[in-house]
């Protein structure tokens, strides 16, 4: 089966610093790909290159066989890429419903979609993440967990094929985090999205991911099933430092 997204030799420099060094991987339709790495490993830079925030210096990105390396952000969204932010970035002056409505209107092109149709869609996504009762609250007045859920609804409303989730657990308490994981699983089932999941919390990815890619200093360390990656010596070394065996 052809991959949904294939990344080949992705490279990104910031001045003299090599942030991403020839990273290659593939994502297949319907899977959940975990993406891990220590702080400053270049995880977010990879996502930024894939979603079009930063232009890749070298390498190729293909989505469904279409080369999107030089495409603008909104064109990538129309092809089916969506992302959530590490720190929620709502539209502060819009209500929860209208924020989702905006992305439902401007996301992937749907033929003959009227304003009312978009409103129905937006209502559905808002209900899915459990914010229907808060639909008329301005986004700036929502709590942190609700903002995360609003982000998810906004990303889903663009009807993506591939959803980039950037550290959804950061700042949530265990109960909320559990809900968030459940929500992403349900989204996978109901909307048929493929998930690219960056996370610090390993326990979450061990449970949810089908495959994990680990990077450090911008270069790929390991790729495989969660068990393989966790038992990989390079990965352990990247997290714990060289000579960790002396203390183990």
């Amino acid at each position, binding site marked *: 089966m052809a991959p949904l997204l294939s990344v080949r030799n992705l490279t990104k420099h910031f001045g003299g610093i090599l942030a991403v060094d020839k990273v290659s991987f593939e994502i297949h339709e319907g899977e959940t790909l975990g993406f891990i790495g220590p702080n400053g490993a270049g995880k977010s830079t990879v996502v930024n290159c894939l979603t079009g925030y930063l232009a890749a210096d070298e390498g190729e990105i293909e989505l469904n066989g279409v080369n999107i390396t030089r495409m603008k952000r*909104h064109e990538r969204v129309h092809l089916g890429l969506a992302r959530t932010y590490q720190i929620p*970035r709502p539209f502060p002056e*819009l*209500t929860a419903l209208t924020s989702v409505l905006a*992305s439902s209107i401007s996301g992937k092109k749907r033929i003959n979609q009227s304003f009312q149709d978009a409103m129905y869609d937006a209502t559905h996504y808002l209900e899915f993440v459990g914010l229907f009762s808060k639909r008329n609250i301005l986004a700036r007045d929502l709590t942190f967990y609700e903002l995360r859920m609003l982000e998810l609804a906004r990303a889903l409303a663009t009807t993506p094929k591939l959803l980039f989730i950037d550290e959804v657990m950061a700042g949530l308490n265990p109960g909320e985090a559990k809900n968030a994981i459940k929500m992403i699983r349900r989204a996978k089932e109901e909307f048929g999205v493929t998930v690219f999941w960056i996370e610090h919390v390993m326990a979450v990815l061990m449970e949810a991911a089908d495959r994990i890619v680990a990077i450090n200093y911008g270069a790929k360390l390991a790729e495989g099933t969660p068990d393989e990656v966790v038992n990989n010596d390079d990965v352990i070394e990247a997290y714990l430092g060289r000579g960790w065996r002396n203390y183990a």
Partner: protein
Amino acid sequence: MVETELKRDRVIIRLGTKKWEWTLEPRYWRNTLMWAAILFLLPIPCYFFLPGIINTMISANIYAAIAMPLALMTIGTGRMNFGPQFYIGVGGYTAALLSIAFGWGPLMTLPFALLTAMIAALLFSPLVIMARGLYYVLLTLLLPLVFLEVTFIYTDIFKGDTGLFGIVPLLNTGNAKINFLLIGYLSTALMFAYLWIINKVLKSRYGLIMAAINDDEEVAHSIGVNINKVKIIAFVAASTMVGLIGWFYAHYFSSFAGITYLPLTFMLKILLVLMIGGRAQVFGCVVGGYFIAFLEMLMIRFMGPIQPLLFPIILLILLFILPEGLFGLYRKRRYREYLPTIHVRR
């Protein structure tokens, strides 16, 4: 003893054991047809008793008709333009120069005024992509001031010191008073046309997209909005609408001088119309326009020499006690009735 009590949504008046309640339901006085009828009927008694009021009405309508496209532009580009009067200058000078040179009437000069305003806007539209924040404010602020200098430098063309005279008037029925009344109606019609168009746009899906851009450009881009296209269209369309006002001014006064419209004092008035009406609410712009025009008229008539000082002070006080403008009083009660407003960013 009469006791009055102001609750959140009602005023309660008590007299002895009796009690009256008056619900403050803003929805009732937001009836556009009622206000349109008042605005169209008001000039008739004024025509017989107080012709001066018609003059104030015309300036109020024109202030509102400049502030409304500016509101559209501010929301659609996500930036505060401090020099919309540049396009008044472009439209006005085009109409004035063509009318004087070829003796053309207002209908002949109209397409050219619109065209030059649109071309000027297209020429400067890359600003909305390149500059943001303070830089955008400074650049847009400079444009009309530079144009003002140009009118003085090339004074043989623009007559920067005396102004251009002898423009064909907007209407000529032979009776000056009737001309005045008709122009009053024309300005009201122009204002309502702008109100209708801009309100329609802001309430549509495009208005929502503009509101998203106004709130957070980056995020709007990442949900699939082609931000550059939307910003340029909003900028050019709104500038062209402002350019039309220049055409109106030139033919209305039969004279046009850049020094009247291009300096900052005129811009300040427009900005206050925008802010006092309510942060870029289109209906608020109309309220703000009438408020400012009538306040100005009363000040000039009764305050004499200290008027230039008092006018900004009163407006400053109003901006402090009504940070969201007059329309904000309404919005605070029911923000679920969605309308985009400007989000002032650093």
